[in-house]
């Protein structure tokens, strides 16, 4: 390296000396590409000294100029970096391809930055990447596309959101990232956005970047920028895009048919010494397929989007309207979503130094949804557990003439029925496992929202390099729901005698005002730019709702609380939110020396109304540096054409606290009665001890990374991070002698460590043939370090009516890990039962017989009890990956997008273990039936003394890894001539398939379980969708 620098310096000195006295002569040579040596046509040859153009290369990259031998020649070609070389006849100059991607602009929060000079870890997704991807929601744009960002769809229910985790789960108190849309911090998620309106999405992954959002940046920041009018041509552009698709479930879960069910019920009864319930199982045939009964086949999805845009020197606009409708694949007519959105973005250069602009979006959503991922009443949970002997409709007049269909000799008035007849009631399965189709008819609930998000700004250029900007944003949301539950009778424990109509109405309003001053200046090779600002935001809201019983109608549309009847059954509630306010000062300085040495320093101060006066203000600094090695003069590598290394550390915060959580508020209900007549007196006392020290959770994140371009086509980005959460809020156990409930306090710690890798290969062979492959892999390890409470754990999720504890949050283990007994095979014979004993010879499982699970005495105390419950699995994947393959060939283009996770487990809690007559997964056919039959699935018995299935155990924990073809698309762009004849510009037709293939060992409906932290209680699966669409531009 040193040698190279010396050589370069020597050459430079020599050149300068030579040019002073040299004479011109004819110099011939060639200019080629550094990577593959292909010739570069039209490269300009200049004199380095005078800057005058001497000539250019021909089609073969050859040139012939006159210059003094040894004088410095400069070579310049578009798309390549300049090179200087001493003139020498027969010279061969290799130009390195300019890495255009790195000169893109990224949004960094209160400003933008050249991508090549970014020192933090920021991912960018652009409209180009999303074009025609049939996205339902904006989060999907990020799924599988960028390392370190894990998006898990809550479910396949239309309108369902996603769990978004940027570099893991940083807190037990909320780990959702901050969403900023056109500068407005958005509450309640970004499902109001029309994916077609998006220009770019930036994800600030590390604290060095997110520190600019201070107290709310700890979980990462997602910055969305919507489209604006483009170009200076002054011509209006109109774009239309639409698609139409059909969706179907991609899988059914294997369950027992009627014959198998009856056979196993007989076996269970026999094992328990009970009478055989079904004398002839075979006669029952296949029975009812309840999944078929609740799935909605060929559910349609439609999207239509029209936009107009125009731009000139005076200003620009972008306007769009869109409509998106989706029916769900479960519960026909009861699960759907519709979004109508409109947007207007404008900019105006009102004065040579003053620019104003705005973005306004309005969205109206309506949705209907069914319960999901619960063992108590989700249609799919019921479909898995309902016995297959019961028909959908009961047609047997004998059965219909007796209980439970009749009461007091007459048919019940509130049996669920429709045009098909009376829905059957299972005489076998009880509790919440009712006829799933009938149950769907007993609840109508239509949710809606109207949301308006607006931002206006004015920007004034005060002097060269000095810009002031003020922007005001509002986020106004109305949302609510209308519900109606008719009177119904589903079984002995699930009925409603009087119908119920409900309604609720909510309003949330947030405003924010940002003022910033930005300055940029070059001093020779030094460049400095910076921004300082102030921001304030306040959120208010109110809500009300009510219900009425027994309205004289069974029609959802007709039922209303204002129905003039039964005023005494009217219930109302309502209230106002306590205001949430946040005020901030922030500043950022970027410095670079000759684009080579880069540094960024950020400091933000935040004050939140959610914290007490002692710690109202928090300070969040970060520093990051980078080095563009390829910009060094000595850099001369054809293998690595560009390389930037980055390192940074920063602190950001999480203000996940409730209103007045730090304070002691007064609670009622501390009553006592005095007097002969037990005259009740109201008593009040503080709800808890105040904690005026309550403050932000802090996340300190160190990040090192390198962005490398290999030759012309290949790039890799690597990031290694260490994210430590401090001051995590938990409720520590205080001694009871203090006398009141402990407040939450900042005592916990959490750790996430990981590695993000991205690589891509992009190559154009000619203007109509290109290929692009991009992939990313993230490795993540999460650990709850310290909780500061009694026992070092927090109880997690529970399962079933018995409330089995199946997950825990515990020090030293990943958050929300699966918890329960560990099985070690099945006792194959009674000898094995006897052998499972402690040192004293006492049987560990005295109630077990051959065929029962052998549970492990994990703590080795010679007893099998609750203390033996242990770690069974981790819901958080070790590895998350995604890959996109794009190819263009003539008018055709193809996209394949893969996504997956590995190393996680799923807790399959779809079975109602407490109901022995509930149907079983098809895997029950492989149960233990005798010595040597299986070691994985215990025997079936109606009297499960060993609690084979009534304990949380690894029997329920399955591998959750999957690889999914999320999207496969084939498009065709009309030839320009043909399009022009039709009066169109660029016009593309395509077919798109979503979720065409999923490779997983998981046996449930879907391995993608965002809602429920890896516990599947009957998830609403993702749909497989086939769609066709087009997009076109009109003049």
């Amino acid at each position, binding site marked *: 390296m040193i040698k190279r620098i010396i050589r370069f310096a020597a050459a430079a000195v020599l050149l300068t000396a030579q040019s002073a006295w040299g004479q011109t002569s004819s110099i011939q040579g060639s200019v080629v590409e550094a990577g593959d040596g292909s010739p570069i046509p039209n490269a300009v040859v200049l004199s380095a000294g005078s800057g005058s153009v001497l000539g250019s290369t021909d089609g073969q990259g050859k040139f012939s100029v006159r210059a003094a031998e040894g004088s410095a020649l400069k070579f310049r070609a578009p798309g390549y970096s300049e090179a200087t070389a001493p003139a020498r006849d027969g010279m061969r100059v290799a130009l390195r391809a300019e890495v255009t991607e790195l000169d893109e602009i990224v949004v960094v929060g209160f400003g933008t930055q050249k991508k090549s000079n970014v020192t933090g870890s920021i991912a960018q997704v652009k409209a180009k990447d999303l074009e025609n991807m049939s996205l339902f929601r904006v989060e999907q744009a990020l799924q599988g596309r960028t390392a370190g960002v894990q998006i898990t769809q809550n479910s396949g229910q239309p309108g369902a959101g996603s769990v978004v985790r940027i570099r893991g789960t940083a807190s037990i108190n909320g780990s959702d990232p901050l969403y900023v849309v056109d500068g407005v911090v958005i509450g309640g998620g970004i499902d109001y956005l029309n994916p077609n309106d998006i220009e770019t999405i930036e994800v600030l992954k590390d604290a060095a970047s997110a520190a600019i959002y201070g107290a709310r940046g700890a979980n990462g920041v997602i910055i969305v920028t919507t489209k604006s009018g483009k170009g200076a041509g002054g011509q209006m552009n109109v774009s239309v895009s639409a698609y139409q698709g059909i969706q179907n479930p991609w899988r059914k879960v294997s369950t027992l048919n009627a014959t198998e069910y009856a056979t196993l019920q007989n076996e269970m009864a026999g094992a328990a010494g009970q009478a055989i319930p079904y004398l002839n199982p075979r006669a029952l045939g296949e029975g009812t397929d309840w999944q078929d009964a609740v799935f909605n086949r060929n559910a349609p999805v439609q999207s239509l989007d029209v936009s107009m845009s125009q731009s000139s020197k005076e200003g620009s606009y972008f306007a769009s309207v869109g409509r998106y409708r989706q029916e769900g694949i479960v519960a026909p007519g009861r699960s759907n979503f519709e979004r109508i959105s409109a947007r207007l973005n404008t900019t105006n250069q009102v004065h040579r130094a003053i620019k104003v602009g705005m973005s306004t979006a309005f969205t109206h959503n309506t949705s209907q949804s069914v319960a999901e991922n619960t063992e108590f009443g989700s249609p799919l949970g019921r479909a898995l557990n309902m016995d297959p002997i019961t028909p959908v409709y009961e047609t047997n007049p004998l059965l219909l003439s007796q209980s439970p269909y009749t009461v007091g000799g007459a048919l019940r008035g509130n049996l669920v029925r429709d045009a098909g007849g009376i829905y059957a009631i299972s005489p076998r399965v009880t509790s919440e496992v009712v006829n799933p189709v009938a149950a769907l008819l007993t609840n109508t609930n239509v949710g809606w929202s109207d949301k308006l998000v607006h931002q206006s700004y004015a920007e004034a250029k005060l002097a060269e390099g000095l810009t002031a900007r003020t922007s005001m944003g509002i986020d106004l949301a109305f949302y609510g729901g209308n519900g109606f539950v008719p009177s119904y009778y589903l079984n002995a424990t699930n009925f409603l005698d009087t119908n119920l109509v409900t309604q609720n109405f909510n309003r949330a309003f947030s405003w924010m005002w940002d003022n910033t001053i930005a*300055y940029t200046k070059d001093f020779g090779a030094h460049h400095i730019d910076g921004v*300082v600002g102030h921001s304030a935001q306040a959120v208010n809201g109110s809500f009300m709702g009510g219900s009425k019983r027994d309205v004289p109608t069974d029609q959802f549309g007709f039922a209303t609380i204002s129905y003039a009847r039964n005023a005494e059954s009217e219930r109302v509630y309502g209230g106002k939110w*306590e205001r949430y306010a946040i*005020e901030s000062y922030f500043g950022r300085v970027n410095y670079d020396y000759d684009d080579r040495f880069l540094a960024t320093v950020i400091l933000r101060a935040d004050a939140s109304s959610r914290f007490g006066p002692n710690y109202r203000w928090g300070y969040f600094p970060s520093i990051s540096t980078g080095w563009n090695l390829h910009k060094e003069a000595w850099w001369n590598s054809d293998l690595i054409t560009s390389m930037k290394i980055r390192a940074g550390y920063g602190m950001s915060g999480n203000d996940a606290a409730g209103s007045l959580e730090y304070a002691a508020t007064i609670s009622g209900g501390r009553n*006592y009665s005095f007097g002969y007549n037990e005259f009740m007196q109201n008593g009040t006392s503080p709800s808890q001890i*105040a904690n005026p020290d309550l403050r932000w959770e802090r996340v300190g994140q160190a990040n090192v990374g390198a962005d490398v371009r290999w030759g012309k086509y290949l790039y890799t980005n690597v990031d290694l991070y260490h994210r430590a959460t401090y001051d995590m809020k938990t409720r520590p156990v*205080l*001694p009871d002698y203090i*006398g009141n409930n402990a407040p939450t306090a900042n005592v916990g710690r959490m750790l996430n460590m990981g590695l993000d890798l991205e690589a891509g290969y992009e190559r154009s062979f000619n203007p109509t043939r290109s290929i692009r492959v991009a992939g990313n892999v993230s490795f993540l390890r999460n650990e709850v370090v310290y909780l500061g409470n009694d026992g070092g754990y927090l109880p997690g999720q529970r399962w079933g009516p018995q409330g089995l504890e199946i997950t825990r949050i515990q020090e030293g283990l990943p958050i929300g890990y699966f918890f329960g007994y560990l099985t070690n095979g099945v006792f194959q014979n009674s000898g094995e039962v006897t052998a499972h004993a402690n040192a004293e010879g006492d049987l560990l499982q005295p109630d077990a017989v051959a065929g029962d699970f052998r549970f492990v005495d994990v703590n080795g105390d010679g007893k099998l009890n609750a203390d033996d419950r242990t770690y069974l699995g981790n819901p958080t994947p070790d590895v998350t990956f995604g890959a996109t393959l794009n190819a263009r060939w003539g008018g055709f283009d193809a996209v394949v997008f893969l996504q997956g996770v590995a190393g996680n487990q799923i807790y399959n809690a779809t079975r109602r273990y407490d109901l022995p007559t509930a149907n079983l997964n098809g895997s029950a056919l492989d149960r233990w039936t005798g010595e040597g039959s299986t070691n994985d699935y215990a025997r079936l018995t109606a009297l499960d003394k060993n609690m084979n299935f009534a304990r949380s155990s690894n029997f329920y924990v399955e591998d959750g890894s999957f690889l999914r073809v999320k999207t496969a698309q084939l498009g065709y762009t009309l030839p320009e001539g043909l399009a022009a004849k039709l009066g169109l510009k660029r016009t593309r037709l395509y077919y798109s398939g979503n979720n065409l293939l999923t490779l997983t060992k998981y046996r449930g409906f879907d391995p993608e379980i965002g809602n429920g932290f890896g516990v599947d209680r009957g998830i609403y699966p993702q749909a497989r969708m086939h769609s066709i669409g087009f997009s076109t531009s009109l003049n």
Partner: protein
Amino acid sequence: MKALHLSLFAAGTLALASCGKDFLNVDPIGRELEINYYQNPGQAYEALVSVYDVLQWNDQTGFSIMYLLQTVASDDAHAGGSDASDQPAFVAYDNFSLTPNLGPQAGLWRKNYRGVYRANLFLEKIQNVPGTSDEFVRRTSAEAKFLRAYFYLDLLRLFGKVPLITKTLSPSEYYEVTMATPEAVFAQIEADLLAAIPDLPLSVGGSEKGRVTQGAAKALLARGYLYMNVKMDQVAQLSEEVIQSNVYSLTPNFADIFTRANEHGPESVFEIAYSENSTVGWEVFGSGYGEGNVGVQFCGMRDFDGPVYSPGWGFAPVSQELYDAMAGDPRRPFTIINADSLAGSSYSPGYQNTGYFMYKYAPRKDALSPDGEPALNWGTNVRVIRYADVLLMAAEGLARSGGSEATARGYLNQVRQRAGLQPIQASGSALIDAIATERRLELATEGHRFFDLVRTGKAAQVLGAKGFVANKHEWLPIPQTEIDAAQGALTQNPNY
């Protein structure tokens, strides 16, 4: 230079944009902050009610039903329930298999310290409540002091050495507490009660029944002296003051004392009020919100089907010893239900069934809560201090302090006479023994027996067969969870 000016101008603009101080202060909506509360007599009164509220808690960390647990711990009853695993805390207190992790201590500890905290908070706040009359402040302060003394006397008798906390603690003081000796704790109890007595009313009217009176405070102090075995003359004097106040009298018919009609009756010196208007369900169990007496449900006969009584859970079956000790005593049928002799009824024998059940707090159909979960909402009041108890304390105080034995016998015989028994003529230690026996029989199953055995040093002798070990089981273990949470501030009781 121009740029500099503009920057300064812009910086000034930014500074102007900064928000006022109030911007970040949240006004509570629909609730009050503690720091803004206690601003009028109504709020102060509600705070006082919240101290009383703790008296009736019986759902803290399991079931912390004082009178029932003390009866189970004594020789008057067994643990009972459905089987040996039903309510391990009861079983452990019954057979003295208590450990720091097993027993009723966590609930009793928490309940009483919650009460102490609320009393301390009230006493701190009441000084600065605007608009209160002197009389209001004096009386309510006296009530809070009484209640603080009440909670401390329970803590003292249950745990021996406990942290003595007489103000609300600030975070820096949480782990600075020390275990106070029983004498130090009692000194505080004595001081509180002596301070309270002059400010309390002699008696209260119908709508205030249940609020603390002078008589209640004097009787509680007498009970404290007795337990500490000090100042027997004061026991006699305080009890006689209550007697001579003529506010209280014996209910003529012993059988009527525990009826619904006799709640806050003439014999009631201090009573914990429960209400069958309480409507809570299991979802609030453990919160202290209920106003019902769950102990009633506990001691009922399992699956009982018959007249008068409602089914219960079969806890605290009365011991054969007590049944035998009351042989021929007219009070026996009104103290013990002989379930096997009840005509036209049936019940399921549970764990340790003797066929005998507690009569005084039995679940009677006429006290069944009309709403809410019946088990949690029994309205039966707990008679904490009865006039009969005061008479017997007066007798004991006189007999043990060298006072008039005749007067002592007179008080004792008032109690016997009401029960329909012959007067006793004993004197000296025979008189003291007779008083002790009378206490057991008159006050049986009301939760006094265990502490009486402990204070008279007879516990090991009487309860040894059940597992009682001297110098250990006089007190409950300090809850292990509390020792862990206290970060070294607490030490375990001896021999645990």
